[in-house]
């Protein structure tokens, strides 16, 4: 028996991967299939699931009402869920854009720093991430509140000049959610961009300078194209979690600011319609997979994602 395992390489590989396969089948594949099955079901009055095959949940998500009695296709059209979807996509795009704009100069700075200091600078990026995800959102709550730190500081500053200060309403606005998202996911962009910038050979810059390119031209013709793998990896690492986020919007955005994540969470906990929540969850998954697929097919999928 032992001899057989020793000589059978494929069997060794199978055995080594079997535990991982077991975990992934039971806790990932089966749950996803179950989510799909439930999304075709109906909600029983007591909140449990009736297993049938109905597309009602998907029709409702698209904005149509299966029980509609008004004639015409758009008789009861309701864009509530479509709007939520677009809000999530818009927020994810905005967050990714801001994060790239903030991460790029910092990564460039670190990549061009003397080798000895690079690790220290990178380390400094990671330290704020050592507090908990929820606690970081709480920190922004303290800063943005009407009586919070930012308003307190502004009031003190204007007070020095004898000016009257009306506190700004910053918490529970879309802007607050954006700031919170950017803060949470910034390091996920810095690390991959840094990795690809660090790999650029110094002689390339010298060559560009020798050939008469100025700083801006060197940046757009040499640095930026060569760092694209890092930007792509970072975009995936930021875009996907923002699409499914619900904690940041819950705490910083208030009740009115609903993202796909909040919609799903409320279906499972407050509204108690797991079938509708499952359908929304699957739509979210398919959407991120499609976006990621086309995005990586266009720009390639760098190894930078591993380093992060």
């Amino acid at each position, binding site marked *: 028996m032992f001899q057989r395992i020793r000589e059978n*390489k*494929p069997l060794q*590989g*199978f055995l*080594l*991967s079997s*535990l*991982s*396969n077991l*975990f*992934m089948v*039971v*806790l*990932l*594949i*089966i*749950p*996803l299939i*179950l*989510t799909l099955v*439930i999304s075709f079901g109906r909600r029983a009055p007591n909140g449990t699931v009736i297993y049938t095959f109905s597309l009602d949940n998907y029709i409702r998500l698209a904005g149509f009402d299966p029980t509609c009695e008004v004639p015409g296709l758009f008789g009861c059209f309701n864009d509530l869920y479509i709007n939520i979807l677009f809000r999530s996509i818009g927020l994810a795009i905005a967050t990714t854009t801001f994060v790239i704009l*903030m991460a790029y*100069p*910092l990564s*460039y*700075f670190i990549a*061009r*720093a*003397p080798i000895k200091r690079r690790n220290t600078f990178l380390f*400094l990026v990671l330290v*704020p991430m*050592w*507090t*908990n995800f929820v*606690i970081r959102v*709480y*920190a922004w709550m*303290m*800063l943005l*509140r009407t*009586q*919070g730190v930012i308003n307190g500081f502004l009031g003190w500053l204007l007070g020095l000049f004898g000016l009257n200060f009306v506190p700004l309403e910053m918490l529970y606005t879309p802007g607050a959610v954006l700031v919170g998202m950017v803060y949470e996911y*910034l390091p996920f962009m810095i690390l991959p961009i840094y990795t690809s910038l660090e790999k650029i050979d*110094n002689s390339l810059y*010298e060559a560009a300078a020798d050939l008469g390119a100025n700083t801006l031209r060197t940046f757009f013709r040499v640095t930026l194209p060569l760092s694209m793998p890092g930007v792509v990896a970072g975009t995936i690492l930021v875009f*996907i*979690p923002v699409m*499914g986020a*619900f904690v940041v919007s819950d*705490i910083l955005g208030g009740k009115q600011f609903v993202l796909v*994540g909040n919609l799903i969470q409320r279906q*499972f906990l407050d509204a108690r319609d797991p079938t509708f*929540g*499952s359908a929304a*969850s699957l739509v*979210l*998954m398919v959407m*991120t997979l499609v976006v990621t697929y086309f995005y990586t097919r266009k720009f390639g999928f760098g190894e930078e*994602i*591993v380093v992060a």
Partner: protein
Amino acid sequence: MNPTRRSLFVKISTALVYFFLYAPIIVLITFSFNASKTNVLFGGFISRFGPLQMDGSMVVQSPCGPFHWFCELGKNKDVMNAAGNTMTIALTTTMISVIVGTMAALALQRYNFKLKPFTQMSLYIPIVIPEIVMGIGVLVLFSQIFTFINTALALNGDTQLSMGMGTVILSHIAFCIPFVTLVVQARLQGMDKSYEEAAMDLGANELITFWRVTLPMLMPGVLSGALLAFTLSLDDFVITFFATGPGATTLPIYVYGLLRRIITPQVNALSTVWVLVVFCAVMLTQWLESREA
């Protein structure tokens, strides 16, 4: 061209981004020494030691001095309970996911077998789907299984199966394995195979080669994988939120619950302790890695 030359624009934006990263943390830590109980404004530091003295909502004097809120935190049974749960979950998750993840990495990097494409695909999925999708998945799985068993066996009251520590740990392991595999695989890719071949040439069998050559060389990767799994589990809110049940409150879940009610500087004290704990964990792995290298 000087390789370390950076324009003023780069320097200023770097400084601003670092400020953006640190300002919230500094506020958070400063407020953990806040004399004001309501934690809305900073009421100065508590400087005097002695029996507790309050002036309105201000703490004037405390037996722990400036560390008043840390002492209160220590007395808070809910927090201590949640901290215990969080550590149990993180340590168990780290141990199991490191073993399973390393095995999978070896299989993917060194062997060809029938299910390889499946293994690769399944380990890729949790990285490219939003966490909430996986959270909903495990919630649906466990709730359906438990409802089925509870009705089938007519269990009720205390004997009823419900979500708790077990379901959280299982979900965390499944969530961490892909990341461990990724890190260990990266290390395996960069490893020189000639050392192992030399060991085999010198008469060591596969097991001894693995134990004496492969594993020690792989150790830095395994340690980084462990650190990653530990921090992922410690930091996780979403999966825990959906997989948890009575008696399995973790610190992130506890803090999230508090955010909807009154906030005391205790939460800030908790954050300060948290930063210190993770700092020590990182330092420990750095030290272990430098010893291995």
